[in-house]
C-alpha cells in the first residue's frame, strides 16, 4: 500500500501541495523557535557578571547550583516568547493540517470508492490515506526543518540586542531542536490524517458509481460531544478570569481563546451555516440571484463551510484576544502606577550617572536644598537573587527609606508594618507572596549582587505596583551596603504643603541645570512608563503573532484555493444553465464573504468576551482606568482575513472560468 500511497500523492500533487505547504511552514516555525531556544539555552553570559548560586534542592532534586546573570542581561525574555511561539505554531499547525487532509480526502470520494469496489478493505483504505499523510509529512517536515536551519542565523541576528534579549546570540547545535520539530510535525500530520483516514474508511464501494461528490451533511455525534466538552472547559476557564485569580489571569486570557477556537471549530458545521444565514439576510435582499445561491451553498455544505471558516476563526480569535488582552493589561498597569505614585514631580537622573556616583550625591543635595521640597524619594536598585530550595531567581530589589517613600507613594501594607523595615528585612508584593507563600515573619534566603549571602525577614506585604516599586523592598542602608556604587535612577519629589507643583518644577529646573537631570510632572512620567510597556508588548506581539498570522494567512488562502479548484464541474454546469461568468464570480465572492463574516463574528465574540472579563479582573480596586482599544490593529486583522478569504476564493474561480466553456459540462 505504501507504493500506492506514494503514487497517489504524486498524482494529487495540487491537492496535497496545500497540506505540504501548510505543514512545511508549521515545521519551519517550530524549528525556528526550537533552534532559537537552543541558542538562548546555550547562551552563558560573561563569567564576571554572573553568580553561581548553590541550591540545597528539594524533594527529588539533589543539591545543585545555578548560574544567574547579575545584569539581568540574559535571553530569558526571548525564551518565554519563543516557547509561546512554539505553542501557538503547534496549535495552528494541528488545526490547519487536520482541515487540509480532511479536504484532500473529501474531494476524492469516488477514487476511494473505486478502490473499495475492486477489493480494498476499509482498513487498507485507511492505511493508504495514512501512508499518503506520511509521505507528505516526511517531505514537508524535512523541508521545513532545512529552511528553519537556514533562517536561524537571521532570526538570531534580529533578536540580539533587543529588549527581549539584550545580548549577542549564536546558533547552537541544530540536531536536537530540529529533530524535535520534525517529530512534532510528523505527529501533528498523522493526528490530523487520522480522522481523515477514518472518514475515508467509511466510504462505500457504491461511491465509485455516483456522480455527485457532495458529502452527506450529517455531523458526527462524537464531534458534537467533543465540541461541547471543549466548550464546557472553555467556560470553566472563562469563569476563572476574575479578580480573585491574580497573576494567572493574563496567561489564562491567552490560552482560553485556543480552547474556545477548538470547541467552535468542532461545532462549526452547526454554527457557521446558522450565522452565515443571518449575514445573508441583507445580501439576499440586495442581490438578484448570486446572494441567494451563495446562501444555499454555505448552508447546504456545512462541512465545507466549516473547514473554510476554521483558520479565519482561529487567527482572528487568538490574535484579537492577545492584542486586546495586552492593551488592557497595559491600561491596568498604567492605572496602578498612577494610583501608587502620589508625588506630583519626578526627577530622572542622567543616563550616565551610574558611571559617576559622586555626581549623584550632588544631585541629591541640589534637590533637597531647593526651597519648598518636602521630600525627595530616591530608591536604589540592588540585585537580589532569591535562592529557594531548587531555583534561583534574580529580583529587582529596591532600597528605600520607608519614612520618605511613604510620603511620595502609597505604601499601605496588606499585612505587616512598613516601619519595621530596618536591618535584615524585606517587604514583598502580594503576587510574590501569594506564589511563594510568604507571610509576615517568613525568612527568605538570598544572595546579593556583591555575592554576599543573607537571610531576609518579611515585615510587610504590599499591593503590587510594578514600575513604581521594586519587587523586593529593603532598607536603604542594606541596599547601600551591598551595592555601594548604585545611585537612584529617579527621584519622586513631594512639594511642601500649599506649594504649586508647577512653580516647584520651574525652581528645580533652574536648580538642576547642568546636571543632565530631567524634571517632569508625574503625569508625564507615568505616560512614559505606560508607553514603554506598550512598546515592549508590541515587540512580543510582533514576534508572537507575526509568524502565526503569516501562517494563518497561508492556511486561509490554501483551503479556499483548494475549495474553489474542486468546483470546476459545478461552475461549468452553472455556465451551461445560463449563468454568466460575472454571476458565478459574484456568487463565489458572496459565499466566501459569508463564511469569512461568520468566522469573524465568532472571533469577535471570543475576543470581546475574553477582553471584558480580563479587564474586569485586572482593574479591581483601581479607579478611572483608561480604556485603550487598538481599533486599527483589530480592524486590520479582520479586514485582512476577509480580503484573503475573498481573494483566495475568487482568483481561482476567475481562472477556471477563463479556461472553460459551458460545453465542457457535456464531455466531462
Amino acid at each position, binding site marked *: 500500500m505504501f507504493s*500506492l500511497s506514494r*503514487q497517489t500523492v*504524486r498524482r*494529487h500533487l495540487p491537492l496535497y501541495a496545500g497540506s505540504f505547504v501548510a505543514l512545511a511552514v508549521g515545521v519551519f516555525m517550530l524549528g525556528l523557535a526550537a533552534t532559537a531556544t537552543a541558542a538562548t539555552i546555550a547562551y552563558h553570559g560573561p563569567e564576571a557578571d554572573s553568580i553561581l548560586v548553590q541550591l540545597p534542592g528539594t524533594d527529588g532534586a539533589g543539591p545543585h547550583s545555578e548560574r544567574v546573570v547579575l545584569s539581568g542581561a540574559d535571553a530569558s525574555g526571548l525564551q518565554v516568547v519563543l516557547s509561546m511561539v512554539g505553542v501557538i505554531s503547534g496549535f495552528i499547525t494541528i488545526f490547519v493540517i487536520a482541515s487540509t487532509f480532511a479536504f484532500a480526502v473529501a474531494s476524492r470520494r469516488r477514487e476511494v470508492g473505486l478502490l473499495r*469496489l*475492486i*477489493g480494498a478493505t*476499509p482498513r487498507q483504505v485507511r492505511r493508504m490515506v495514512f501512508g499518503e499523510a506520511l509521505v507528505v509529512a516526511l517531505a514537508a517536515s524535512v523541508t521545513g526543518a532545512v529552511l528553519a536551519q537556514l533562517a536561524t542565523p537571521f532570526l538570531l541576528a534580529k533578536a540580539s540586542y533587543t529588549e527581549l534579549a539584550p545580548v549577542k546570540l549564536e546558533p547552537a547545535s541544530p540536531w536536537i531542536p530540529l529533530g524535535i520539530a520534525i517529530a512534532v510535525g510528523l505527529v501533528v500530520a498523522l493526528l490530523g490524517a487520522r480522522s481523515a483516514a477514518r472518514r475515508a474508511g467509511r466510504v462505500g464501494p457504491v461511491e465509485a458509481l455516483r456522480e455527485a461528490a457532495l458529502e452527506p451533511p450529517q455531523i458526527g455525534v462524537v464531534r458534537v460531544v467533543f465540541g461541547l466538552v471543549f466548550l464546557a472547559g472553555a467556560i470553566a476557564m472563562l469563569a476563572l478570569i476574575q479578580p480573585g485569580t491574580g497573576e494567572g489571569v493574563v496567561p489564562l486570557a491567552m490560552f482560553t481563546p485556543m480552547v474556545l477556537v477548538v470547541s467552535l471549530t468542532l461545532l462549526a458545521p452547526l454554527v457557521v451555516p446558522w450565522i452565515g444565514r443571518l449575514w445573508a439576510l441583507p445580501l439576499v435582499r440586495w442581490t438578484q440571484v448570486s446572494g441567494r445561491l451563495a446562501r444555499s451553498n454555505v448552508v447546504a455544505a456545512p462541512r465545507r463551510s466549516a473547514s473554510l471558516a476554521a483558520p479565519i476563526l482561529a487567527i482572528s480569535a487568538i490574535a484579537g484576544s492577545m492584542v486586546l488582552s495586552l492593551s488592557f493589561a497595559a491600561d491596568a498597569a498604567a492605572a496602578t502606577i498612577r494610583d501608587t505614585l502620589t508625588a506630583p514631580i519626578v526627577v530622572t537622573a542622567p543616563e550616565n550617572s551610574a558611571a559617576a556616583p559622586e555626581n549623584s550625591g550632588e544631585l541629591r543635595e541640589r534637590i533637597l536644598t531647593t526651597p519648598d521640597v518636602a521630600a525627595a524619594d530616591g530608591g536604589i536598585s540592588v540585585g537580589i537573587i532569591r535562592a529557594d530550595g531548587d531555583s534561583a531567581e534574580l529580583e529587582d530589589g529596591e532600597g528605600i527609606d520607608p519614612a520618605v517613600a511613604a510620603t511620595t507613594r502609597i505604601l499601605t501594607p496588606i499585612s505587616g508594618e512598613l516601619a519595621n523595615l530596618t536591618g535584615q528585612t524585606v517587604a514583598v508584593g502580594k503576587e510574590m507572596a501569594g506564589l511563594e507563600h510568604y507571610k509576615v515573619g517568613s525568612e527568605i534566603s538570598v544572595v546579593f549582587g556583591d555575592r554576599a549571602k543573607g537571610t531576609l525577614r518579611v515585615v510587610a506585604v504590599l499591593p503590587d505596583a510594578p514600575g513604581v516599586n521594586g519587587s523586593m523592598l529593603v532598607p536603604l542602608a542594606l541596599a547601600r551596603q551591598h551595592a555601594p556604587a548604585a545611585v537612584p535612577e529617579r527621584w519622586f519629589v513631594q512639594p511642601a504643603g500649599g506649594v504649586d507643583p508647577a512653580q516647584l518644577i520651574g525652581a528645580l529646573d533652574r536648580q538642576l541645570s547642568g546636571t543632565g537631570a530631567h524634571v517632569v510632572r508625574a503625569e508625564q512620567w507615568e505616560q512614559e512608563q505606560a508607553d514603554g510597556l506598550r512598546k515592549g508588548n508590541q515587540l512580543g506581539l510582533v514576534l508572537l503573532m507575526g509568524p502565526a498570522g503569516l501562517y494563518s494567512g497561508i492556511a486561509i488562502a490554501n483551503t479556499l484555493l483548494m475549495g474553489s479548484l474542486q468546483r470546476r464541474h459545478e461552475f461549468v454546469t452553472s455556465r451551461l444553465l445560463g449563468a454568466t461568468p460575472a454571476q458565478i464570480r459574484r456568487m463565489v465572492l458572496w459565499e466566501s464573504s459569508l463564511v469569512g463574516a461568520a468566522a469573524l463574528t465568532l472571533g469577535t465574540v471570543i475576543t470581546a468576551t475574553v477582553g471584558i472579563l480580563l479587564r474586569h479582573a485586572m482593574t479591581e480596586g483601581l479607579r478611572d482606568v483608561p480604556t485603550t482599544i487598538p481599533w486599527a490593529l483589530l480592524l486590520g486583522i479582520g479586514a485582512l482575513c476577509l480580503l484573503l478569504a475573498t481573494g483566495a476564493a475568487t482568483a481561482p474561480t476567475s481562472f477556471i472560468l477563463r479556461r472553460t466553456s459551458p460545453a465542457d459540462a457535456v464531455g466531462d
Partner: protein
Amino acid sequence: MTSTAPTRHPVVPSDPPALLLDGITKTYESKAGAVQALRGVTYHFQQGSFTAVMGPSGSGKSTLLQCAAGLDQPTAGTVLLGGTRLQGLGEVELTKLRRKQMGFVFQAYNLLPSLTVFDNVALPLRLTGIRPRRQDVLAVLDQVGLADKAKRRPAELSGGQQQRVAIARALITRPAVFFADEPTGALDSKTSRQILSLLREATDRAGQTVVMVTHDPVAAAYASRVLFLSDGLVAGSLDNGSPAQIAAAMSDLER
C-alpha cells in the same frame, strides 16, 4: 419478438448457479415517501452464462446489479454467490469475496489515474496481498490487446483502451462473475464490439458468468439471454435475440 411473458426457470439447474437472487426487494426511503426500486426479483444466473439486463429507466436494473454484487443491501431477500450467502457478511468479508469472486466494468472507466496500466491491472492482486507475477499481468493485457501499453497511464489512452484495461483488471483475479454496468455507454460502435467480444470470450472460454446492465439492443445481442425488468419486477426474457428483436421487446415494455 417472441415472448415477453415471464418465463419460469428450473429451480434445480443442471449446472450449479453462479449467482442466485431469491425474492430481492429494495425500498429507498426519501422525503417524498418510500420508493420501491425492486419488488421481489428471483432469478438464477447459470455458470458460464452471459446475461444482459434491460429495462426502461427506473425499472431497477442498476439497483439489481448493485444488490447482486453486494454493493448495496436488499431490503429483503437473499443473494447467493457461488454458494455463499451475501446477507449477514461483514464489510471486510464482503470486500474479500468481491476481490476474489467478482469483476467490475463500468461506463466510467474507473481506473486509478495515478497508476500505470500495469499497476492498475495488478492492483486487485496487491490488495489481496499477492505479489503479482509480471507474466500474468502481461498475459491478461495481451488478452485485451494492450500488452504494449503496460507503461502508459490511463490519461494517455483512448476511452476504448481504458475500458479494455478495466476488463483486464477484472480478468486478473479470474472472478466467477463479471458485473458490467453500461460498459459500452461511452464508446463508439467499433470499440464497443471489441469490449463485448472480450466479455463474451470470458464466458465461452473460461466459463465465467457475465451480468451486464445495458440499454443498447446491439450490446444486449452479444448476450446469450436478455432479462427484461419493469417496475422492479422481472418482465420476461429472450434467448439469443437479434438487436431488432430485443429493441422490439424493449419498446413493448416501455409502452
